[in-house]
């Protein structure tokens, strides 16, 4: 049975058999062979049998499909060929050319990559630059690189504004609090802000804070411009350049 093996840095990511219907390759998860890389188009290429021969066809992808380093639009594949798509490559095993029923093949597909690996500095830089270049086209990416800041609108605190550089920022009277409250009867840890991968979350401490006037029960993600009130202080959360 003909088979395609998606490789990343010499590690097997996934294997799919080529059967009676075409194998879709692309970034979109509904492909038969999803390739998780921003240099890959959503529906990048497909591989199928035509008159007993294994064929790869580029689906007008942005960055192209390469067979043995030659950019192709359509090409016949042979055993041992290598298809390059983005940073991944796909090894072609064309032995036993007879198409098999699709369903029986699907179960045979290998699970995801399990071995942990580290990228060396060069590959990491390349991939992140590529990802960043793609990211600039998305509307969210720009805001993420800005510095999240709390501007003090009212109440007794030590500074006028605070940059959120820690994973966990605490607001309270405690001497180690990031945003230190002054005055009598202030709680040691009134509220806390946790930096997560997808943004900054405000959570209650000894007090229930409000965001734009609404009290919160558990962690709530902060949006640019939100006004936080807790223990007698008002803070404006903004992303600053």
């Amino acid at each position, binding site marked *: 049975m003909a088979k395609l093996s998606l490789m990343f840095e010499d590690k097997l990511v996934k294997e799919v058999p080529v059967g009676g219907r075409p194998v879709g390759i692309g970034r979109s998860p509904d492909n038969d062979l999803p390739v998780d890389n921003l240099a890959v188009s959503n529906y990048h290429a497909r591989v199928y049998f035509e008159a007993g021969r294994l064929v790869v066809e580029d689906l007008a992808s942005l960055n192209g499909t390469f067979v043995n380093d030659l950019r192709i639009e359509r090409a016949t594949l042979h055993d041992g060929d290598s298809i390059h798509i983005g940073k991944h490559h796909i090894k072609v095993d064309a032995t036993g050319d007879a198409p098999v029923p699709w369903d029986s093949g699907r179960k045979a597909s290998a699970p995801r990559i399990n071995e942990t690996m580290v*990228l060396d500095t060069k590959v990491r830089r390349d991939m992140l630059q590529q*990802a960043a270049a793609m990211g600039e086209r998305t509307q969210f990416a720009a805001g993420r690189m800005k510095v999240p800041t709390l501007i003090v609108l009212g109440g007794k605190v030590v500074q006028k504004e605070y940059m959120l550089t820690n*994973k966990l920022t605490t607001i309270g009277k405690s001497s*180690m609090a990031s945003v230190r409250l002054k005055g009598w009867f202030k709680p040691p840890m009134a509220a806390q802000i946790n930096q997560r991968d*997808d943004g900054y979350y405000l959570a209650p401490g000894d007090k229930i804070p409000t965001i734009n006037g609404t009290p919160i029960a*558990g962690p709530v993600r902060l949006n640019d411009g939100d006004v936080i009130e807790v223990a007698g202080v008002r803070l404006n959360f903004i992303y600053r350049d």
Partner: protein
Amino acid sequence: MRIASGGATDVGRVRANNEDCFGIVAPMGLFVLSDGMGGAAHGEVASALAVETVIKHCQEAENNPAAPVYGETRAGWNDRTKRLFSAVYLANKRIFESAEAHPEQKGMGATLTAAWINGPRLSIAHVGDSRAYLLRGGNLQQLTSDHSMVAEQVRRGIMTLAEAEQSEIQSVLLRALGSEPQVEIDTEEQELFARDVLLLCSDGLTRMVTEPEIAGALQSEPDAEKAAAKLVERANDAGGADNITVLVIRMESEYQGWFSWLRRWRKSANGNGLAGGD
């Protein structure tokens, strides 16, 4: 504050060997966890070397404050944070040098997440995709950032969390100990309060068990050792795809004020029978 801690590690249900390693030095309040990588048992070598180096370096510093500090520490950090940073710096160097000296160990590496508690002060040093969490007031907050390709893409707004969880390249790390002569170490200080629960874990837990489930297990089991074992069991029940290591560290308030003398008296009257261990 009194610290009660417990740790558990398990090979899981899929892997043949356990490449995770952890160390607890209760009298020092030092907790270290490492997840090794690299074929043919070298992951075990790397994680064990990481844990051993960090603990040894910190212990030496306790006995000899003049012991050398490695790497570029920041002036604002307290002494223990500097020492912990230095220890992780050294661990990276040791693993890298070992891999250089032994060609068969090429590609070996390890994550490292370490916590050092001194009174209310917590120092954290971290490289890789193991995690430290703080359960406080029922909210589980992550004290470390994963140094993985998918997490970095989420931080840059290129990928959503849901996409990251489905990604096939979750195991691709951007940073680990031992892959290069020097490594960037995330280092942070936090304040701890009574009833805080600190959790250190390898990705074998966080990929199998959701955060609400983790928070629930920590809240429902007051014994640190049992809570750690319970979380390992949950990860195994969910499939145990990877090695699982969990360290649970509970900050307990000491009795203070009017009745503290009474408790002390009762404790001594009961001898060792009721005095809790560490």
